């Protein structure tokens, strides 16, 4: 679209462009997702889906809020932002009320499964190495807690506690390779 001067009132008003964003990301369109799951996998997903289904009549529906947990329970590790994206950016109050049926869940799950930067063991270790000031294979527990609670998709205090239980040694240091193995092993 050719740029037009904004002052001309006769022009059909176009939406003001927001402050420059790196990329204009299109809305998630489930119809565009090609399902590549095998029938076996789909049966497995159904079982898990049923486990989460809390509807009165077992309608094979889960709430939007449960979707992220289900995807994670099935072995993916999306960020919360990614979950919100595939759900079509629902409002906070919709998370508990809006329902998702199994057929709508599949493209969402497929999309997440195909996502590229899942993060391998090496990525993870590299990510933690960033905090290894002394280069000795350990990071300060306190610093890690602070980072997890204040950056990114912040974790709550009790979640951080849960994660870090029994990981720190007497000096409050964490051997991060062991830590990563611990997290990835669940």
């Amino acid at each position, binding site marked *: 679209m050719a740029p037009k001067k904004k002052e001309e009132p006769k022009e059909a008003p176009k939406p003001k462009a927001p402050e420059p964003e*790196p*990329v204009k*990301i299109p809305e998630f369109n489930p119809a565009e997702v090609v399902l590549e799951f095998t029938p*076996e996998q789909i*049966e*497995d997903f*159904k*079982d*898990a889906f*049923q*486990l989460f*289904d*809390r*509807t*009165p*009549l*077992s*309608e*094979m529906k889960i709430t939007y809020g449960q979707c*992220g*947990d*289900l995807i*994670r*329970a099935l*072995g*993916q*590790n*999306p*960020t919360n*932002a*990614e979950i919100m*994206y595939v759900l079509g950016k629902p409002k906070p109050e919709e998370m508990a009320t809006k329902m998702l049926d199994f057929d709508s869940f599949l493209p969402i799950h497929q999309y997440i499964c195909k*996502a590229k*930067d899942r*993060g391998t063991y090496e*990525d*993870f270790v590299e*990510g*933690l190495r*960033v*905090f290894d*000031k002394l280069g000795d294979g350990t990071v300060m527990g306190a*610093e*890690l807690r*602070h*980072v*997890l609670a*204040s*950056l*990114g*998709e*912040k*974790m709550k205090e009790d*979640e951080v506690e*849960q*994660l870090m239980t*029994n990981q720190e040694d007497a000096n409050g240091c964490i051997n991060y390779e062991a830590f990563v193995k611990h*997290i*990835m092993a*669940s």
Partner: protein
Amino acid sequence: MGCGFAKSDQAQLKQLNRGTSIVPAATAMRAALLIQRWYRQYVARLEMRRRCTWNIFQSIEYAGEQDQIKLYNFFGYLMDHFTPASSERNLISHIFREHDIGRDVEWESYKSIEVPELYSGPHLSFPMTFSNAAELVEAFKNKQQLHSRYVLQLLVESWRRLRILPNISQISTCHSKEITICGDLHGHLEDLLLVFYKNGLPSSERPYVFNGDYVDRGKDSLEILLILFSFLLVYPNDVHLNRGNHEDHIVNLRYGFTKEVLGKYKLHGKKILKLLQKIFSWLPLATVIDHKVLVLHGGISDTTDLHLLSRVDRHKYVSALRPPKSKKQMRSGLIGSDLEDNDPTYEFVGSSRRRVRSLTHTTYTVTRHEAPRRSLQVQTTRVTYSVEEELKKRRRQAGLSQSYRDLHNSTMNSDLDSDPDSGGELLDSNEDEWKQIVDLLWSDPMPQDGCIPNDVRGGGCYWGPNVTEEVLRRHNLTLLIRSHECKQEGYEFCHNRKVLTIFSASNYYEVGSNRGAYIRMGPDLVPHFIQYQANRSTRELTLRQSVGQTERSALKALREKLFAHKSELVSAFQVYDPEHKGRISLGNWASAMEAVLKLGLPWRMLRSQLVGETVDGMLDYQLWFRELSITEHKTELSNANLLETMYKNHSNLETIFRIIDTDNSGLISLEEFRQTWKLLSTHLQTDISDKAISDLAVSIDFNKDGSIDINEFMEAFRLVGGDLLQHEDDVH
């Protein structure tokens, strides 16, 4: 999708930059996001495993309860149909015989029991004082045992107290008193002690309501009862005890309380049990707080009527599993000379025209959730088959929301044998009462509207939110507090926060499986929860460790079940493998498992822990069974089928043994064993030859003295199971 930085992230980055200067902000952000993503996945997967594990425990538990009831119904059926001469009848009449427990004089006999000088446990004096009761708590904390004389004396006094209480206690929170409400304790003394520690002992300033299920499963059921009864005696107006479905001597036979008492009190155990039988029937049925909050053990049904319940003679219902007796229907001389006509506790429906009824009056497939794997089928006895078919049809026609009352009525109507005129009315009102009480003790809430029989447990019903609304409205109440179901957090709301489940036995299924909780409630009638977990070490477990431990336990229990059903499973697999190649697909495996075990479990999700290797999505089931199979029993049993059947039914067997071991010696004769086995095989509709049973009996008589040691026999099963699974654990 990459990690796009939104505005809020940029603010965070600025914040970080102000703090540590060394780490490049963007890198730190990426690292944080990565860790957080993985953490959330970790938590979600643990939650999934926890749910599965929970499902396993719960379905096995409820299936066991159902089993118990079926067994009991079977005996009832046999009693209905036996002719006087049969020797097996004597055996069964044992089971139904309830000796006269009416007269006080007999109970005073405890006075003749001497307490020896050597006894170092607590001495009780009556009337009991607070310090006496507190002393008792301390003594039990220190693992002392109360002398049987004091036990009996305490129980007699408690009985005296309980029988003057109304069916439904009315209490109030006036004087700004906060009331404490506790749920199931199930013999977990450490939980009761923990509650007292956190909340204080009962007193007039600290009133308590205990909501049933004090006994069974845990190992200190008797101590819990003694403590609760002591405080009842000391503070009669401030301690309220509701009856639970486990305050029932029939249930106790299976779930451990009977065994506990007989083990702890070898000389007077039977007497103690008999007295408790009576006491249980005198426990009040419910408590109402400020006319607004109803507290009872199990739940309600659409016919629950508190006015009716407050008028029944509750002590008539010694066991909720027995239908009430109607004198008119009794056929004299059927049972034998030990029938006491004036003994109100001998409840037995004598007329041969009446069919044996399960507690729920129906036996058909009920789907609590529409998903097929949840459906459970209750077996019928052959006699009632045609009627059940008709009920099934009606039910399908009527739809799921048909109320229990309708079904009950259709049962009555379609009983082709019954004579509607002979004493029908009397029986009806007894039936009504009985149903009210069973519903109160055994029911569970369900998410959908309606009221359907509780086929999972085999007693009571499932009731929905609309029933809650109606019953609360009908009685002008605002909240129903109940127990009966184990909850992860110790408590759980449902039905729009009108129903509250409170469960006070922590680590119920396994160490770390759940917390316990109790409620504190003041005049505002708003419940406040205090949660806890007994056993210090569980608190130090990480989430994964406690999930892992509970999971291992559940899987062990599940594997035992699999082994017990091996033949049936192999047959089911072979349906999908007609050419007997020994392999089936995972999908078929899952269907077969559910069809045989009927536990409503998510088999596909459990597959990885139960099955192991598959090739091309196909499972070699023979190999699987070999891996699963348990090491040989120490006696050489040529009949593998028999072993399997025995293993599968060892709980039932044990129950029966304990019944027939009337002198509590732990021994039963070979003849009794043979009879028991024959009975059981009729119940199970399996075909086991007399010779096989005789051989078995002889082989189990290890020391060849003509009698079988029950404990030794039962130990054999535990040992066998333990061996294999120990090995498996080591391997992992």
